[in-house]
């Protein structure tokens, strides 16, 4: 299997935020979903995001991925300030530089697995890079499922197709918002292992939200969010380390 060269760690960061803030509602009903987060995501890294429900994990990812506009602060992906982009350019950035795996409903029901995977390339009116396509399909073990429609795939297979779709453009960054949330434990861990593989072997940069300490421990780094802020960070985490932090945060 031919796999592209792993990039050196000296690459510029895949993304960074400065004082990123997202506020919903006004006055009494104001919710600071993301409250002044500044962070850097190195290229080729695997980051896990943890935190209680409502802590702003999804909002952070949406802002990072150009799916939502921050109220204030800056998001840069590959050096581009997202706030300078109009809707069309932002859409193109999502298509070319970002991959996203949602918790559910990741696939277009009318398209086959293969068509779903190459969708972002097709939207850019480009043919997928055959070698890369084979590499990700191989890594994700989807070879014999490509002709099936989503309804004919298991939940785990659907999420793997979604990961392949997220990787197909060789984006700067791939985000996962609880991509294993709807899967049973085994399929979930399989999927996270695959994400780890994508970072190690395919040299991708991945940020994913997860509630599973075991999964989080496979990441290079874990951010802990509470009330819209990064309240803690663990590098080279272990399962116990993660559990400790979670317990600490709950008190």
């Amino acid at each position, binding site marked *: 299997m031919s796999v592209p060269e792993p990039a050196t760690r000296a690459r510029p960061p895949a993304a960074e935020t400065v004082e990123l803030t997202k506020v919903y509602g006004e006055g009494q009903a104001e919710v600071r979903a993301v409250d002044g987060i500044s962070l850097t995501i190195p290229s080729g890294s695997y980051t896990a995001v943890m935190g209680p429900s409502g802590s702003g994990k999804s909002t952070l990812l949406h802002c990072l991925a150009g799916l939502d506009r921050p109220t204030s602060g800056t998001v840069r992906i590959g050096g581009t300030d997202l706030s300078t982009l109009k809707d069309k350019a932002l*859409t193109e950035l999502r298509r070319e530089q970002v991959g996203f795996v949602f918790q559910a*409903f*990741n*696939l277009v*029901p009318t398209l086959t697995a293969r*068509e779903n995977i190459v969708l972002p390339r*097709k*939207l*850019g009116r480009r043919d997928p890079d055959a070698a890369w396509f084979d590499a990700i399909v191989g890594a994700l073990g989807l070879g014999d499922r490509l002709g099936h429609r989503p309804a004919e795939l298991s939940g785990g297979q659907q999420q793997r197709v979604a990961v392949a779709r997220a990787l197909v453009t060789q984006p700067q960054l791939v985000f996962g918002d609880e991509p294993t949330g709807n899967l049973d434990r085994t399929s979930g861990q399989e999927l996270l292992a695959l994400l780890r593989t994508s970072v190690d072997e395919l040299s991708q940069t991945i940020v994913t939200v997860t509630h599973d300490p075991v999964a989080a421990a496979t990441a290079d780094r874990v951010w802990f969010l509470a009330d819209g802020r990064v309240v803690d960070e663990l590098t080279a985490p272990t399962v116990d380390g993660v559990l400790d932090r979670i317990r600490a945060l709950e008190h």
Partner: protein
Amino acid sequence: MWTLTWKGLLAAKARFVMTALAVIIGTGFVAGALTFGDTLQQGFDRLFTSIVGSADVVIRAEEPEDGPGPGPTAAEPASFPPEVVDRLDALEEIALVDGEVEGVAIVIGDDGEPTGQFGPPTLGYSAFVHEELDPAELRTGRWPDTAGEIAIDAGTARAQGWDIGDDVGLVLDGPVERPEVVGIFGLGELDNLAGASVVVLDRETALARLGTDGELTAAYAMAAPGVGEAALLDAVRAELGEGFRVQTAAEVVAEQQEAFGPFVEVFSIALLVFAAVALLVGSFLIFNTFTIVLAGRLRELALLRAVGASRGQLFGSVLGEAALVGAVGGALGAGFGLLVARGLQAVLGTIGIELPGDQLVVLPRTVGVAIAVGAVITLLAALVPARRAVSIPPVAALSEVAVAAPSGRGWIRNVLGALLLVAGVVALTATLLGDAGPTILGVGAVALFLGVAAMSALIVRPLARLLGGPSAALGVSGELARANATRNPRRTAATASALMIGLALVSFVSIFAASLQGTVSETIERSFRADAIVQAGTLAGVPPTALDAVAEVDGVEVVAPAAVGQLEVGERTITLAVMDAAAVPAVFDLDVADGDLEGLTAGGLAVSESVASDLDLVAGAEVAATVPGGEATFPITAVFDGGGIDVSGFLDTAAWEDAGGSVSSAFNVYVRFGADADAATTFDALGSVLVAYPQVLVLDQAGFAEGLAAQLDQLVGVVLALLALSVLVALLGIVNTLALSVVERTREIGLLRAVGMTRGQVRRMVRTEAISVALIGAGLGLALGMPVGAVFVRIEQLNITSLVIPWTQIVVGVALAALAGLVAGVLPARRAANLDVLEALYSE
């Protein structure tokens, strides 16, 4: 359950807007047709009442049988000498009596064209001596006293912009003259006699020049004080004796109403047919809306079932919703009907058919019918989706997977559809090969239509794939559009079927009309020997002085004037060219199938093949017919191939008169040039002598054919305009289905946007789907309408000899359908493109 119905409606009100719109348009057309008919009826009623004015009795000379039809007959009017009025005046039962001359007077507009070509009548009357009896009322000026003065109706004066003191163009019995307008009058509150132009002349001129040879056509009498109606009638009848029709004012009005009743009725029925088509198309839309809306509520329905609602209760609630939407739509439709009625008046007005009725007449019946029709149609259309939706098992509410309504037994539909298709094809083939006739073809067409409709879910897939080629050129938006069009084939099929109906009818009518036109010009070329045709441009016919002028043109050899006569044999009316038998071979080259034309001079009747086959006539047989003067028997001398000639028989003038028919002025004058005359020069010369007669047209063969074609074009235009309404409903259907689909696919669109589909690509995707649906509908419509049209024109009784497929028209039709699809896609596409990515993604 009623609360449920009500809540359901409120929750989905946006979705029902389109259903209501479809109902509004469909029922609006029904209400419009009814309102139009009622308005017309009232207009005529008022007109007839105003014509009688304040007279108690009206006296006319006994007319030949077969009373006046709609509009004045071309036949010479029955008349009586002016002395009759003096005799009546002497009766002590009569307070006032006045005589009237009615004839034809053609008003020539300032543009040199006669007003109302083949449209409303152009009437001339004498001025009354006793103004009390005059149905007309002066608005300004005075009544004419001498030749060179006229009074004119207010409607015409307004239309032409004429006022007192203007010299205006008028044709009586000779060339154009320019009398002065001295008075402008109305009829009660009406400006005009149903759009007819009315000219009043001084009595001397009227008697001399309205074609009555100095006689009167009617007398109006008012009873002396204290004299009853019966006594008055008795006295008048006793004085006048035989040969007069003496009628009370009420009788005159009733007679007129009876004469026009069928006309109004036919008109209304024709309009209701188009309304029915629009309703049929609308029912597809309603069906689709309910299917989609209910599909979106399946989980809710299942939940209701789970908590104990019975199937029947849910069914009732859904149907209640349908009936309510339908009734409300119908009520609004009644209002929309007013616009439709005005629109119809305007459309007919532009092609010169002006009908009475300024104030629209809206009867409670019209509103009731609109509401009832709306409720019933919607209820019927909702029946199947409702039954399907309520058969959802209660456990579906709890299941995690997407809930789908149990679909009907597809294979039964398809087998049934296939059988219907086969039956339709057999009927078409039978019509084509044998003489199965229009009924079989009609049944076949309906079978084909139902077959295609039943199988359309199957047909849609390959058709969409066919269209997929070009749409794939649009990239992934095109591919997705195709996938979307086929993901729910039955929905796409129902949407497309609505358009299919319209396009099938359009292509059918176009082929029929084009073939008829083709046949007409072919026949004219083949069977006319005349080099020129002088045609009456108005119902007054070609004036005799014009005939003389034509005869004197250098190079003209034969001048053969033909009047129009009508024979009735049973139900069949034969329109005759009544002309000098000896001249027939000089100006016609009839293709005689049976017998010969020699017998025409001896009083024989030549009939077209279509007449002969309808009535089982052969040369040598005799036929008993009703003529205006009574009954007569004619020997059949020839049967000719007459497809396209606008006459179905020939009869010698003398024979017509012998049979009691009165000879009107000529409508068509066939002119043959001498062998050594230069055709172009002679034709030009003919044109220049007839400049003085703007009421006649001079045409060469091609011009004649064009004229006939133009008349047909106008009719086809009106039919197509009426069909356009059902196409409009079908387009609303596309808008609706797509809008609902966009709502249904909100999450998916959010996903597409999230992974990089631009707004433009989303828009293109939805629009492409709209165009695909439109093209599928158009394609199916053509596939149905064209063969049926092509077979239809082969039906022998129609005597259409050439099959013309108007390709340009059909290509334009398809292009318009695509364009319409594009337009229909605009709103749903905009809606889809403007969805907020995150909101869409996380929507339920």
